[in-house]
């Protein structure tokens, strides 16, 4: 039985049917959001020569894009709360497309910062949040699998975009490539078209068409006689596309009093300092050890391949009946596993050791990414998820941006990569242990609260039965008289 947090949606999510099309749409949106900034680095050398700027000035384009993507989180959440996922993703896709087309005509580097960085970043933010949110509305029982599959978008799109970008660059130069990328990104609008808002009135019978009519009727009869809590009022069925009237229309700041959310946030802020740096430094570390460029690039491919496969597998494991109720422990395990991987990395000797490290790191990274948003949904529930993810991304903005440069500084100061790996390992192991302890405490508290609330319900239903019996006695007394 999943814990209490997510089940008070007010309707029964389909857990299938059109939900899988939505997972595919989320796959595309999430894939573009994470992979797009990384894949643009292929053009940097040529652009750097064209505008005659230094390497760090070019690297700022990527940083500004990532920063805008994370900072746009709350804006995206507000819009999703107000308008639903579909319009926001549509707007996001168009924004990124326009940004790339404008950038292809750019004349200065500032032009690129504004177009690709700011507008593009915001557009990607408008893709990421709604995609995550809509999965929560369509899935409840199979949510970990859906999340795992959707998050697989990131490595798959990255491995597709990287060689595609290289090909486009050779054929068309960077300006032509930006133009074509602007149109490729419009696939996010196709994904938006697939993100149909969930139908809260139709009962879940995904494979039936004509029998659905009967099914709806008989279950509708049942619904009328059951308590009003489980079904929305008839008037709300037509308002599916409007905001959920039970939640605040703007961002839900009461989350800062939510215990699970605070645990998640505090752990993540520390963890993200050491999250991306090892990925960034994998190839340079390999070259430092003496491997040639192609073998170093092969390491990254191995990492991406393992990452790609481990994400759906993690989703499946997370969905199994042993793990699902205690999925927070699984997440804590994933974080600690990452930390241990990094701490053991300096022991890897030679190219074979690095390959082993890449495999383990790939699995750790994939596990963590697949569970990252699933556990947040599990903690705060699908209703408040969009606000939660907005707040989380804007607060994570700092660590994500500062992590790689600080690690780079560590490498420069000590001249050796192992101190950076030790630092990243500790920065991930500590939150892992923190999560284990805090979630043990949190689960206990949730159990207590649930026992109290069910006891309270039993008391009120007993009182209701008592009241009815008294009423019957009264009426019989009255009729007798």
């Amino acid at each position, binding site marked *: 039985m999943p814990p209490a947090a997510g089940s008070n949606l007010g309707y029964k999510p389909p857990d299938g049917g059109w939900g899988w099309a939505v997972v595919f749409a989320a796959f595309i949106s999430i894939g573009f959001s994470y992979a797009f900034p990384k894949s643009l680095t292929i053009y940097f050398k040529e652009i750097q020569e064209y505008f005659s700027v230094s390497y760090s000035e070019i690297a700022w384009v990527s940083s500004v894009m990532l920063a805008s993507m994370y900072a746009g989180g709350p804006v995206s959440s507000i819009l999703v709360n107000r308008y639903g996922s579909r319009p926001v993703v549509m707007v996001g896709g168009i924004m990124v497309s326009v940004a790339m087309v404008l950038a292809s005509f750019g004349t200065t580097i500032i032009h690129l910062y504004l177009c690709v960085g700011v507008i593009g970043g915001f557009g990607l933010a408008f893709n990421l949040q709604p995609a995550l949110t809509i999965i929560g509305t369509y899935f409840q029982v199979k949510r970990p699998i859906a999340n795992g599959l959707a998050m697989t978008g990131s490595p798959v799109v990255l491995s597709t975009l990287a060689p595609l970008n290289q090909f486009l660059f050779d054929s*068309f130069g960077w300006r032509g490539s930006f133009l074509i990328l602007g149109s490729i990104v419009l*696939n996010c609008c196709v994904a938006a078209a697939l993100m149909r808002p969930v139908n809260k009135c139709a009962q879940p019978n995904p494979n039936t068409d004509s029998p659905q009519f009967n099914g709806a009727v008989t279950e509708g009869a049942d619904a009328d006689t059951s308590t009003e809590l489980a079904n929305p009022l008839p008037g709300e069925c037509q308002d599916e596309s409007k905001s959920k009237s039970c939640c605040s229309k703007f961002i839900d700041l009461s989350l800062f009093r939510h215990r699970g959310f605070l645990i998640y946030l505090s752990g993540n802020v520390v963890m993200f300092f050491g999250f991306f740096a090892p990925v960034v430094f994998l190839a340079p570390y390999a070259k430092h050890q003496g491997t040639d460029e192609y073998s170093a690039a092969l390491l990254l491919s191995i990492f991406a391949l393992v990452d790609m496969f481990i994400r759906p597998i993690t989703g499946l494991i997370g969905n199994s009946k042993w793990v699902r109720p205690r999925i927070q422990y699984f997440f804590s395990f994933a974080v600690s596993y990452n930390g241990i991987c990094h701490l053991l990395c300096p022991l890897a000797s030679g190219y074979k050791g690095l390959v082993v490290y890449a495999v383990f790191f790939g699995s750790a990274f994939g596990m963590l990414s697949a569970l990252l948003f699933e556990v947040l949904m599990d903690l705060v529930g699908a209703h408040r998820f969009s606000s939660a993810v907005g707040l989380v991304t804007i607060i994570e903005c700092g660590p994500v941006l500062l992590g790689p440069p600080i690690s780079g500084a560590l490498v420069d100061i000590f001249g050796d990569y192992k101190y950076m790996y030790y630092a990243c390992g500790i920065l991930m192991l500590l939150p892992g242990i923190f999560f284990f302890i805090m979630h043990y405490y949190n689960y206990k508290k949730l159990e207590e609260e649930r026992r109290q609330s069910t006891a309270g319900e039993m008391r009120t239903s007993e009182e209701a039965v008592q009241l009815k019996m008294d009423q019957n006695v009264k009426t019989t007394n009255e009729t007798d008289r």
Partner: protein
Amino acid sequence: MIPGKRRAAVMSFSMAIFGTLMLQSVSSQNEPSISASDQTTINGDVDSITLQCNLTSAYETHQESFWMKNGEEIQLTRGPDKNTEYKLNRPRAEDAGVYMCVYTFNMGPSANATIEVKSAPVITGHKRSENKNEGQLAVLYCKSVGYPHPIWTWYKFDNGAFRDIDNSSGRFIITSRDNYTELHIINLDINLDPGEYMCNATNIIGNNTEKSVLRVRSLLAPLWPLLGVLAEIIILVVIIVVYEKRKKPEDLQDAGPVKTNSTNNHKDKNLRQRNTN
């Protein structure tokens, strides 16, 4: 002529000749003479080349000797030897050049002898391929090592063979110096300019060539894929929206009973339930 005067003229003439001869021998005695090995050519078969210099005569003992290559002193060659050697192990084209053995003296200028080590030019750097847009400037270059410095020529592959570049449009500029040459093509023309270019370095010993490929991208080239992708996206969106619009009226039928008020609802449901029964 008066007999006395003739004798005086002959005397002074012979004195002059004797004087110059004496002067010659004296000055040749002052100048140091060095016997140096002959100029050599580097080619693949030679395992090592030894350059020798011997100071055969000098007006005083020399101070030290060292070697120079192409006007710069070679490190770690200073020594007191009169008979000095410099060995080139497994010589390659970059070892070719003008070598000098230099002897320094305490009083007087230093003496030197030059030995030329020649080789055919070997092209060490060139751009294998260059992609540029229409109307831009393309620069192809070639770098070489070897001595003497080669004469550079550029060719373009046309009609099955490498021919001289036709510069009637004036867009081709070749700048060469010593071991480096550049071919500038301004205002690239997408019809005439793409293709294979060859730089040729020739000197008295031999020659070498390297090829570079120049590709010119049309400015309108990205438009076709752009329109193609846009078309694909519009088609997909239209398909998805049409599919949804066709499903929606059916969904609305399901929600139909819920729209009316509850008592009618019960009546309809009872009706249907009776029918199924």
